[in-house]
């Protein structure tokens, strides 16, 4: 398939919300799907499940985009859908999805460890935080959401989000120190 010229995430969002057709949906898909897969993977979903849930999210985004009043709220709105999709999956399957894989490494077929989480210290750090702090830190430093966007996604005051980030960093500093590897 021919790959069209890459568009920025914001351009793709604007085009899709302006005219939700197949072409604009493809561009949007291309720009935001990696973010969605990453979200599910960092919450303990294997690749297949992450891709399934990502598809669910994108179908929901397509059907409900007409309800979005302001383009600027797209990212927090998207992450609310993502969060709810994961919660619904957990409820449906009765399965606990660890928000952080405490055992590094997932063996892909062939026995080769290819999980990026295994090579990341982020995973190890997050294990020392409370679930809500983990969620906020991931949204902030992995998904690069602004404080007010995180507040919108998690439905809490922006000030609380800021302080939880501060408190989380203090915890990490207290646990791992300034010079830990």
């Amino acid at each position, binding site marked *: *398939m021919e790959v069209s010229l890459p568009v920025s995430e914001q351009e793709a969002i604007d085009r899709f919300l*302006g*005219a*939700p*057709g*197949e*072409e*604009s*949906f*493809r561009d949007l*898909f*291309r720009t935001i*799907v*990696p973010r969605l*897969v*990453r979200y599910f*993977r*960092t919450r303990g979903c294997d*690749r297949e499940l992450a*891709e399934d849930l*990502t*598809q669910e999210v*994108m*179908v929901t985004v*397509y*059907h409900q985009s*007409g309800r979005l009043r302001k383009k600027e709220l797209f990212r927090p709105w998207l992450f609310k859908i993502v969060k709810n999709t994961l919660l619904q999956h957990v409820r449906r399957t009765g399965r606990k999805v660890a928000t952080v894989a405490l055992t590094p490494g997932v063996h892909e077929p062939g026995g080769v460890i290819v999980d*990026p*989480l295994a*090579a*990341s*210290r*982020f995973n190890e*750090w997050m294990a020392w935080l409370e679930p*809500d702090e983990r969620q906020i*830190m991931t949204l*902030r*430093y*992995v998904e*690069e959401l602004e404080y007010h966007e995180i507040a919108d996604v998690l439905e*809490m005051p922006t000030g*609380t989000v*800021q*302080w*939880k*980030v*501060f*408190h989380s*960093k*203090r915890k*990490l*500093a207290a646990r791992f120190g*300034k010079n830990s590897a």
Partner: protein
Amino acid sequence: MEGVSLEKEAGGAIRKEFSLMNSEHGFSERQWLEFLDGTIEPAEQAQVLEHLAGCADCATLASELVVWRTRLLEEGQGLREAFSVPEEAFQSMLSSSIERIRSAEPAGVRSSFGWTAAEGIIVLRFLMEPICGPGTARATIELAVQRSAGEGSRVTGSNWRLFVGNLSDAAAWICGSAFGRLVYRAGLGLAIEEG
């Protein structure tokens, strides 16, 4: 840090007290957080740095947290780069998603990707007529087509949003804002084919 205590309230919310923040440290909570985040204004940054130069405790904490901010940013960047999606998997996901969208419509409804502008206009007219009457619906649609597409042209997917906006305005002009809002939401809810 003196003057700051964190308490867990019922429901898990954290409440802080800054009884000494302003008076002893000479800057506000907002400035402190922005300084640690690296988003503080230069003029205010100077104010915080001035304090840190004279307060060992604050300077130590600030130093640690700034280091941790950098680390977290680096690790976040690494994770973003690590979780790329192979093209094959991407195409498979895209095809499946489009298939799911096409097959998700209830019986009797056209595919979300399948509306032409002409069909969309028919749907909107059917929606409007019971409230404003067939004649008013026709008149407002004709006016909106004229304003959106110009004389002799037609409404297409590319000017659909403009058409819906103009139709909503005309509907609101005659029947009120509630009716205009209805037309707008319904019109935007229809996914019109481009071109």
